[in-house]
């Protein structure tokens, strides 16, 4: 409603929108590249690289799930169906950038180059992350939902204050967007103009709860405008689209353009974890409807159509993936050597007198046990 100010009306202290909302709003359709005209401009090397990565990723997911059945992993939240989004998140980053994965994003860590065995350490039942986050610049996989998002903001902010052009890319699920920490992180990022990219993987469910019970928003990407950052909707199964949109957001962040919120529309093909029974809350038909839009198939179609993928190339990719899986299987089959005393070693920089007492107690018990 436009208001006509009458003569003599009192002065109104200057008002203006703090920023123009129009460019912040996402397009109504998720951005897609594969299978569209836009695909013509794609770099073939990149396409092949993405292909190898999603094939590798798919194999990693199936292998890790198999390891749960063999009792070699305590639990595995599979990202089958979401590989395009997972690998793109890893590939768009420079070495100096940081990745903040959620508990579902082991694959993103692996796609970034982390040794799969290290990446799976916690899920295997060990007491630590398995890798040194500072070395690989991958934060510990976060289980408490959305709590990793303010960490990403703080780190990006710290990097910027230090004059480093480091970007933080933080991943979260659709369910995680309901948590207060999501809100607080996005707000801090926008106010601080921090170089962060928020990637929401909307895979349709939070365990059993479908998106319709999670939000009434037009899309999750529409949340961006409420923070004053751009929101982007992307087809999360389209590796090329994901790579493009994420790259653009990373570039913006790196060059002082501030944070971006990206919603990747995708689907969780497996159950929530190996412990979950998805048939209790969703119909097979819905799952099946997503098969045709599988991220691996989308790339295969594109590459085959452009003559870049023959059976040989396909075989090579599959073989490499199998080799990784076999290696992983082999190394996970060995029982890890765990020293129970280690649980005291890193609680504090220097253990408190109380912890020293307790570790002595355990040591004595272990010795008695060994002596028996």
């Amino acid at each position, binding site marked *: 409603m436009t208001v006509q100010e009458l003569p003599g009306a009192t002065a109104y202290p200057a008002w203006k929108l703090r920023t123009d909302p129009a460019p912040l709003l996402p397009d109504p359709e998720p951005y897609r590249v594969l299978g569209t005209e836009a695909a013509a401009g794609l770099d073939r090397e990149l396409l092949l690289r993405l292909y190898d990565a999603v094939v590798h990723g798919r194999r990693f997911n199936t292998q890790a799930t198999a390891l749960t059945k063999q009792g070699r992993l*305590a*639990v595995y939240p599979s990202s089958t169906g979401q590989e395009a989004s997972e690998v793109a998140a890893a590939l768009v980053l420079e070495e100096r950038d940081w990745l903040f994965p959620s508990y579902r994003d082991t694959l993103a860590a692996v796609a970034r180059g982390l040794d799969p065995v290290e990446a799976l350490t*916690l*899920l*295997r*039942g*060990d*007491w630590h992350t398995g890798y040194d986050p500072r070395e690989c610049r991958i934060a510990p996989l976060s*289980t*408490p*939902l959305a709590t990793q998002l303010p960490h990403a903001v703080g780190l990006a902010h710290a990097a910027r204050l230090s004059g480093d052009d480091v970007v933080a890319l933080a991943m979260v699920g659709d*369910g*995680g967007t*309901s*948590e*207060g*920490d999501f809100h607080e992180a996005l707000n801090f990022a926008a106010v601080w103009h921090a170089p962060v990219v928020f990637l929401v993987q909307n895979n349709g469910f*939070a*365990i*059993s*709860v479908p998106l319709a*019970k*999670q*939000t009434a928003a037009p899309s999750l990407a529409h949340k961006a405008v409420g923070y004053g950052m751009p929101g982007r909707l992307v087809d999360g199964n389209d590796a090329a689209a994901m790579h493009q949109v994420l790259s653009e957001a990373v570039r913006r962040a790196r060059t002082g353009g501030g944070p971006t919120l990206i919603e990747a529309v995708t689907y969780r093909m497996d159950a929530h974890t190996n412990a*979950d029974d998805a048939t*209790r*809350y969703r119909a097979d038909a819905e799952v099946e409807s997503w098969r045709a839009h599988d991220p691996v198939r989308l790339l295969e179609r594109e590459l085959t159509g452009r003559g870049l993928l023959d059976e040989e190339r396909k075989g090579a990719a599959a073989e490499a993936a199998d080799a990784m899986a076999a290696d992983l299987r082999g190394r996970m089959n060995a029982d*890890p050597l*765990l020293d*129970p005393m280690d*649980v*005291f070693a890193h*609680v504090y920089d220097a253990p*408190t007198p*109380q*912890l020293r007492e*307790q570790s002595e107690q*355990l040591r004595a*018990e*272990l010795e008695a046990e060994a002596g028996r």
Partner: protein
Amino acid sequence: MSTVAVKPATMAQALQRAMRDAMADDPTVHVMGEDVGTLGGVFRVTDGLAKEFGDDRCTDTPLAEAGILGAAVGMAMYGLRPVVEMQFDAFAYPAFEQLVSHVSRMRNRTRGALPMPIVVRVPYGGGIGGVEHHSDSSEAYYMATPGLHVVTPSTVPDAYGLLRAAIASDDPVIFLEPKRLYWSKAEWSPDAPATVEPIGRAVVRRAGTSATLLTYGPSVPVCLEAAEAAREEGWDLEVVDLRSLVPFDDATVCDSVRRTGRAVVVHESAGFGGPGGEIAARVTERCFHHLEAPVLRVSGFDIPYPPPMLERHHLPGVDRVLDAVARLQWEAES
């Protein structure tokens, strides 16, 4: 009256039945939380409730614990009796402000006008091979918060009785469910459930004369096992299941300790600042001249809960309980 078939039931089933019966008896009882509806909860404790009572009585909420508990506060203000499920106890932490600043204080600040008949069901403790954040024991936080009741069952009938009592209470109750006892079984008839236990009463699970084990929830079976094993050493241990941490049953506890003259508190949550300190201190205050030895504590270590592969070293087990009993200065006796 027909005779009722008594068949084995799990604690999870008894808990489900308690909610079911409460919902059937009282239309103001509402169950809410993450995945409690269609899925029936990740532990299946709310299985079937949405089907029987509809989505409005058993509601899958958005994924936000402060929002869930905060909404429950508003529902209680309007006269409903929300039963909130927190999926794991570490995931109740986001609701901490709502719990401490509102749930526990609303009745007081309104001179009783706005009671908070809310039950917060919290699966707690370890021993189920859970990864990080899935095995916390957070009872110390709740005990230190005036205005809350804190209860925890260790048997199948108690699970039913205590949860019915919790839902019936006009006060907020933190209802701690020992995860590793969800699948424990007992002969118990869902068709003629035990009478509702009032909140606030400890129970002697095993009578004994040499010393008292004061324990609750997941550590009760451990203590009963330890008491059996102790017979070999010539100790006849009494085991008191506290059931209610707030209010605390000083009478039952002190009666036992005065008789035996020795006590060990056993729980799996961390020792320092944990429930054992309060329990040991108050027993000592009240029974000092009956004590032959200091009240000792057996608890989890003061470390972040360790993961599956190491949890057996952390959890108080029979050996550690017996070691503590052995340190109760028996030589002073002779």
